[in-house]
């Protein structure tokens, strides 16, 4: 994380957003407060501001994404930036270009903001070292997905008016989830009690050292939870025999009304999407009145606008 040379007292002093790690409580709160403003703008008839007019935002996605990419695209456009989407799942890699070469090439196009997703942990940070613009991590492997954690926190705060002291249960494929890592970091920084619930094969070694309570049972782990955060289960976890089958996973770890009954009656149900109905979450639970899954998507745009604005303040003025 590089610290901006200018104004150490700036509300958000970082030039890049590479992860939640390294952010202070007040920096996170600043971003959340800023996001509230963006959320208001997003609900107006005229959703447009000109904060980023003349700026170029490049969405550089080495890994397929629908919602995160379109969320950043919309956020950039609402702020008046010129947005370009580059999806290079494997094409340049097939042509033999290294990540660094791609970065140097892009840098020559003089973008102001670069949103990057890559399947390799640490790739976004590596790329950030080679470009002159602001870089936002939109997901690097199983490492971090900071804007997801911010939008989750914003959604929680809007419903519960606080984060400190809440019991948040993150359930599912913790080991392979960048969403889980970023959320654990952010929620701990803001003083929540974080639990993770998963079969041991999906927990990750030493997870308890990340400041979470570890459970293998949904009924135990969901007891008195204020927030139930489900994670997507990928099919390849079955292929690699980390779990035996979808039906067994749903039976023991899928969120249904029986398991949800262990949580607080007003517990929020969250999911970063896209959902596998009937695998990690019962279809009716996903559509329950306590589910804020759609609101998470809305807050996603707001958070990304706030992040773009906060980082753009570090860009040289014309």
């Amino acid at each position: 994380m590089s610290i901006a040379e200018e104004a150490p007292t700036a509300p958000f002093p970082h030039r890049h957003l590479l992860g939640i790690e390294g952010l202070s409580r007040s920096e996170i709160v600043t971003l959340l407060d800023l996001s509230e403003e963006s959320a208001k703008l997003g609900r107006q008839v005229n959703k447009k501001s000109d904060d980023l007019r003349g700026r170029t935002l490049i969405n550089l996605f080495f890994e397929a994404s629908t919602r995160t990419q379109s969320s950043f695209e919309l956020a950039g456009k609402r702020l008046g930036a010129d947005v370009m989407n580059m999806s290079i799942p494997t094409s340049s890699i097939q042509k033999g270009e290294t990540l660094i070469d791609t970065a140097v090439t892009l840098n020559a196009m003089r973008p102001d903001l670069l949103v990057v997703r890559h399947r390799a942990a640490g790739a976004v940070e590596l790329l950030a070292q080679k470009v002159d613009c602001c870089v936002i991590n939109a997901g690097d492997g199983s490492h971090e997905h900071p804007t997801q954690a911010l939008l989750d926190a914003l959604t929680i705060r809007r419903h519960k008016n606080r984060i400190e002291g809440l019991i948040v249960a993150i359930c599912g494929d913790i080991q392979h989830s960048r969403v889980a890592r970023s959320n654990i970091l952010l929620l701990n920084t803001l003083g929540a009690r974080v639990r993770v619930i998963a079969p041991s094969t999906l927990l990750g070694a030493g997870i308890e050292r990340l400041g979470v309570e570890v459970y293998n049972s949904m009924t135990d782990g969901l007891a008195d939870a204020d927030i139930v955060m489900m994670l997507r289960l990928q099919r390849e976890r079955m292929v690699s025999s980390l779990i035996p089958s979808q039906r067994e996973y749903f039976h023991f770890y899928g969120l249904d009304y029986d398991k949800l009954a262990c949580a607080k009656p007003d517990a929020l149900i969250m999911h970063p999407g896209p959902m596998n109905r009937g695998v990690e979450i019962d279809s009716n639970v996903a559509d329950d009145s306590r589910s804020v899954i759609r609101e998470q998507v809305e807050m996603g745009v707001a958070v990304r606008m706030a992040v773009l604005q906060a980082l753009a303040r570090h860009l040289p003025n014309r």
Partner: protein
Amino acid sequence: MPSHGKLLTLVNARLIDPATGLDAFGGLLIEDGVIADLGAHIMEGSVAGAESLDCGGRTVAPGLIDMMVFGGEPGHEHRETLATASRAAAAGGVTTICCMPDTDPVIDDVALVDFILRRARDTALVHVHPMAAMTRELKGEEMAEIGLLQDAGAVAFTNGKSSVANARLMRNVLSYAKDYGALIVHHLEDASLAQEGVMNEGEVATRLGLRGVPAAAETMMLERDIRLVELTGGRYHAGQISCRASLDVIRAAKSRGLPVTCSVSVNHLTLNENDIGPYRTFFKMKPPLRAEDDRQAMVEGVASGDIDVIVSAHDPRGAEGKRRPFAEAADGAAGLETMLGAALRLYHNGEVTLQRLLEAMSTTPARLLGLDSGRMAKGAPADLTLIDLEMPWRVELEQLCSKSKNTPFEGARFEGRALVTFVAGRPVYHYG
């Protein structure tokens, strides 16, 4: 079937309970399939209205629990059914059997666990608990539904007669099973090292011109597994060990406090590779009969408690499997009816105490499998065996209840056998 309201006393007995160390003369009161009372005060006529069986000073012990029985059903009913296996068990003083999933189809699905339990309920004389496959179709490629299978009634998980070669899969299975407290019972043989071996590697195999399986094929797989147990904390049971080196590995693992236990088959306690003699296929099994020093190590291991459990490894095979050249013959030996008699040789030789022998065949298996039996206490199921420790008898093929007669103890003279076997208070076997 509990005898509702009917009271039965076993009197004038030597009561031995390895669970408590009890070894005393007295009697037992059985009511509704459960041990209602026991002790010296229970005598002929001491309980009003009770039917009484005079044990004549002979031994009453918890019924034996056999953790490794290849049942044959479904798919190999010509070799054995749950009904015939259970009759063989009862005749051997065995009141509970664990049937292995090496069937056709393989027991890797909740519906099949349910099938076994229902077939057993309808046809078997003794308790039957299925062990389920820990990988689908026992192929060692994909993990089976351990949680659902356990809920359906599987008492443990195993890959049957094959070892899981893939260490990552084995790690995942141990790690996943730990969440459910499930016991993993693993066969030990590195297939690439054992390759086409058909008996223990060594002088005897060389003289016979047979391909050998080195003992290391077992020990190295065990050593790998122990590392994975250390990594995962999963409950692990070595299905059968057969050589001194494996015993050393087990001892070391236990001294490090790992959740590791093991079995030995009664064959490997009482026979060695020399018994194969002129290519006798009834002595062909997996793991193979080892050298005499290994057999002695197995006996020492049982005596010291480092080997936790004795199994029959009952594996019925018909003539189609056994009446072949040695290298082409099927592995496996029938053993339910001879396990007690053969094991008592160690007692009569003064090598293992009676308490320890019975513990390895009842109390310890019950504890590992989470069963309520394997003990003699008020409220415990009346699964009991009346044993005459001294009775001489000879193993006659035509008298065996098992459908297949492939016993390596044909014609053997034993001292001691089950006279009456009680399952849930009901006598299911009477000798003679």
